[in-house]
Each structure stands twice: as C-alpha cells, then as structure tokens.
C-alpha cells in the first residue's frame, strides 16, 4: 500500500482500501517500520485516505508515528470533507486525489507485496510485545498471545520458530487446511480455496461477502468460507473455522481459527473470549502455551473484555478490543 517516489524524498502511502482508522494505522506502521531511511534526510510522507473517515486524533497519531521513524507527514489526499478538515486541523496540506491516480493503483499492488515481503524478512525477537503500534495508544497495551490466555502461563509462546517453519509458504509445501469441504450443521456454500495466494488478493475487506451463523460449533465441525465469517455462539475445542477475510465470534473461541486463509495478513479474529488452541492469520500460526491445566484465578470471572487477534510485528498477538478507536 505504499510507494516511494524515485525522484524526490517523498513517499506515498495508500490507505484508501482499508476499512477503518485502526487498519490504516496498521498499514502505516508496517510501512514505516520497514522503510529503513538513511540518516540525514528530511523525508516527507503523503497519505492517500480515499473515502476513509479519519479524525484529528488519528491524524496526530499518524504524524507522531511517522516522526518516530525519521520522516514527517506532509500531504493528505482525502475525499471526505470531515477527513479533509481533520487533516487541516493538524496543519497538513490537503488535496482531493493524488496526481496520477490511475497509474498509482497498479503500483499499490506491487508495492504491497514488497511491503509484506519486507516485514517477513524482519525477524523480531519473540516476546518484544510493544511496538510503535502498541505505544501509539490506539488499542491499549499489546499483548502476545500467551499472556492474554489468563491461565498462569509464564513463557510467551506466540511464535515458536521451530514450529512455525513448516507453515511458511514455499513452492512444494501445500497450504494448510484450505481444500476440504464444509462439514457442519450449517449448509455453507463456498468456493474451494486451493492455495494461499500472496497478499495481492483483490478482495478487500469491504468487498468480501459475509457469512452469518448462529449456533454452537462443536468438536469435529468445520466452517470454511471465502469471505468474512460471523458466528453468534461458542466455537468449541476440536472444531475448525477458516475464512479468507475476518472472523468474528460473538462467544468464546476455543477451537482453531484461521483468518485471512488466502494469505491476508491484515485479517483479524475477534471473539468475546479467545481461548483458542491455535490461531492462524494469513501464513502465521500461534499456538496456545502449554500447561493449560491451571485453573484461572477468580478475578477472571469479571466481565470479559472482547478480544482481537491480529498480526503485529510479524507475530500474532491478542489485544483488548476497545470500541471507538
């Protein structure tokens, strides 16, 4: 979603395709954390928001984020008057569209791939939880998968390197769990997904269809859907759900969940409570830490906070899902 203009020290980041401000922040974060600017130059960033609604608060966060990485936000392209006003409030140049809009679209795809490739190459040490995104305050403290399970685990097991190796995409390894049929009490029509494609899937979140299901998913039952998946009910251990888009569970998630099953690393898994045995987003896997036998302390009986799992700094982490970010 980003592109560097060769001629000048100006970078154009395109967030017009994302669904909300949180995703926009994430795209930006993954871009700026991989851009690796040489010292000494003053680099300008241009942001294409398209029809996205962003508040002044978000703009100040974006500015701060970019400043932390040795550049500054200069120009904002926005179609919505509210977003334009918000950018103006932050002292930014505002225009409606980038100059060469048509050529730009092609560039986006190419560069988004590069962007993903770069963040894959970056190997983050396991356990460094708070990155730029976490400290930007958009979503509260960022927690690695293990710690949120509230089961008395000590080690952070979100990314076991050895375990992860077979999951990485390579030519001769077929993609996991993507080509069996739907076995479930629910009759689901879906396209068979044959292999994980890289990031350039042309179905962006808002264009994907959504499957809405009510009921308890029990051990051995499977839901796979090419689109977003909403389940109102609990997803028990031993069941599997996979969606090419986002997954939302209005209940407890204990089974295996795979969001972005076609390779979308921006996909998210939301649930009222995430106790999953394994979480998969795109081509990344996180497993629940061992020693699940310890019973939870009493404080966990308080009102549960909805949780969201997504990729941050190359690994899957669980965040408290705060509404109204």
């Amino acid at each position, binding site marked *: 979603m980003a592109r560097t203009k060769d001629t000048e020290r100006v970078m154009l980041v395109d967030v017009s395709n994302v669904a909300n401000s949180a995703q926009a922040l994430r795209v930006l974060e993954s871009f700026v954390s991989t851009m690796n600017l040489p010292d000494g130059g003053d680099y300008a960033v241009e942001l294409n928001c398209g029809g996205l609604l962003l508040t002044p608060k978000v703009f100040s966060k974006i500015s701060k984020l970019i400043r932390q990485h040795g550049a500054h936000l200069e120009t904002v392209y926005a179609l919505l008057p509210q977003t334009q006003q918000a950018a103006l409030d932050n002292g930014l140049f505002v225009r409606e569209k980038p100059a060469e809009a048509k050529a730009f679209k092609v560039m986006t795809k190419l560069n988004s791939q590069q962007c993903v490739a770069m963040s894959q190459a970056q190997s983050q040490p396991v356990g460094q939880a708070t990155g730029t995104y976490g400290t930007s305050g958009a979503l509260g403290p960022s927690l690695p998968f293990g710690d949120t399970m509230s089961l008395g685990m000590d080690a952070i097991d979100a990314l076991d390197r050895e375990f992860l190796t077979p999951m990485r995409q390579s030519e001769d390894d077929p993609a996991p769990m993507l080509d069996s049929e739907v076995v479930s009490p629910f009759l689901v029509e879906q396209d068979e997904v044959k292999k994980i494609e890289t990031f350039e899937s042309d179905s962006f979140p808002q264009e994907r269809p959504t499957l809405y299901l009510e009921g308890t998913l029990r051990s051995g039952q499977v839901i796979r859907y090419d689109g977003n998946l909403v389940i109102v009910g609990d997803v028990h*251990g031993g069941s599997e759900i996979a969606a090419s888009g986002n997954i939302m569970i209005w209940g407890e998630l204990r089974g295996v969940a795979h969001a972005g099953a076609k390779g979308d690393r921006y996909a998210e898994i939301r649930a009222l409570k995430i106790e999953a045995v394994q979480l998969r987003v795109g081509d990344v896997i996180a497993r629940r830490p061992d020693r699940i036998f310890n019973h939870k302390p009493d404080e966990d009986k308080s009102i549960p906070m909805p949780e969201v799992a997504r990729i941050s700094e190359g690994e899957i982490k669980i965040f408290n899902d705060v509404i109204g970010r």
Partner: protein
Amino acid sequence: MTNKEGRVIVITSGKGGVGKTTASANIATGLARMGYKVAMIDTDIGLRNLDILMGLENRIVYNLIDVIEGRCKLHQALVKDKRLPNLSLLPAAQTRDKSALQQDMMLKVCDELKQDMDFVIVDSPAGIEQGFQNAVVAASEAIVVVTPEMSSVRDADRIIGLLEAKEEMINYKLVINRVRPGMMKSNDMMDIDDVLDILSIKLLGIVPEDQDIIISTNKGEPIVSVDDSLAGQAYRNIARRVAGEDVPYLDLDAPASWMDKVKDFFGKKSRTA
C-alpha cells in the same frame, strides 16, 4: 536398531474406555525414554485423544488424513514431543470420520514411517469395524488392553480372535489395566489368573488403578514419566518388556506408602522394579 525396520505395534481392546490411548501414550513415551526412536499414530479419526494425553494438541498443523490425501508430507505432519526429541505423534483428523482412512494408505504411511523409527505405536479406535481394521493392517505385533471386567474380557477375546486370523500378526500380548489388588484379593474383581485363563494369551504387564493417571491425562504428561507413581513404574516395565528385556512383574500387594519406602530403604521388603 537403526539399520533394520522398526516394529509396528498396534494397541487395541475392542471395548472403549479401558485405556488404549493411555497405554499407547505411556508405552511410546516409555520406549522413547529408553532412547528408541518412536512414532505414535492416532487412528481414531474423528475422536482423537492421543494428542491431548501427550499435551500436543496446540502443536497440530497437519494430520494423518492430510498426509494420505496429499496435502502435506509425512514429516510435516509429525508433531515432535515437547520433552523427548526422539518421540513424535502423527495425529488423527478431528474433523473427518473413519471412512477417510483406507487400509492401503495406512499401510503406506506405516511402511514409510518404520524406515526411520525403532517403534511405531498405533493407537486403535474402539470397535471391530473399519477403524480397527485400519489400525491393525500394518502391524505385526499387538498389545491388547483389558480391564478385569467380564465385558472388557469378552470384547478382548473377540479382538484376539480377529488378530489371530491375521497372517502378518506374529506377536500379541495382554496388558491388564486398572487392576485393584485389594478387590482381587477379596474376590470382588476377576483376578489376573482368571483373565489369563479365559483369554489364554501371554501377559505383557499389569497396571494398577491409579488416580494420578487422571491428573497426568489432564496435564498432558504421560504417567510413565512420573518416577514415584506405581502405574508409571508398571508402564516403564511394560516398555522394557516390549523392548525385549526380562523384567519381573510388579508386586501390587505392597502398599505404596511412605512406610513402604522406609522398608525399601532398609531392604526388608523390596518391591520388584
């Protein structure tokens, strides 16, 4: 051991709930603790449990059916044990049923697996239908698990009959599980000799009823690794017998108390180990 093919041993019982999976986990772990390269195969497609007993549920990415249907290679589906590097598990698929597995495919998987392994332990599902047939197809040895109850013994007898009818089956032995010495003494339970009389099959081991088994199952740590447990000791002995050692049977009459340990220390009454 590495030059020749590994031994494929199926753990079966006919009746459900007698401890097949527990026995599989413990015998495999016991053998691995002795240094052998061991693989477990869970053939209970649709009702998999062995991964939970081993505490490996969260590590499963691919399973037996994925291997058979060509979605991954065998080595990718093998889940390495978290404690013993020479022990691995080929998990069953939870989201499929028994019909997903065919005998010729099972044979192929076992043949490939035993090239690298000293032992391949196959955990069979309950029953005598297709699932059982799949589990035994590649095995040349069998361990029949039985509890000292009439229903279990009857089912085991049926199973032994089926095993005897198999040409490739060269060796099958009995493990008597959940034995309560006190009840046997007071004639409230079939005793070891009764069971052996009815089944006329060689005894491989006797495992006492032990509530620590429940704890170890929930923890995902086989009891064979718990040093001071009697059931653990029983499984360690069974593993040694499977490996070909001559180990005397446990004296289950000895009360397992701290007093006993004191006596052991003074050599007055030594429990056979």
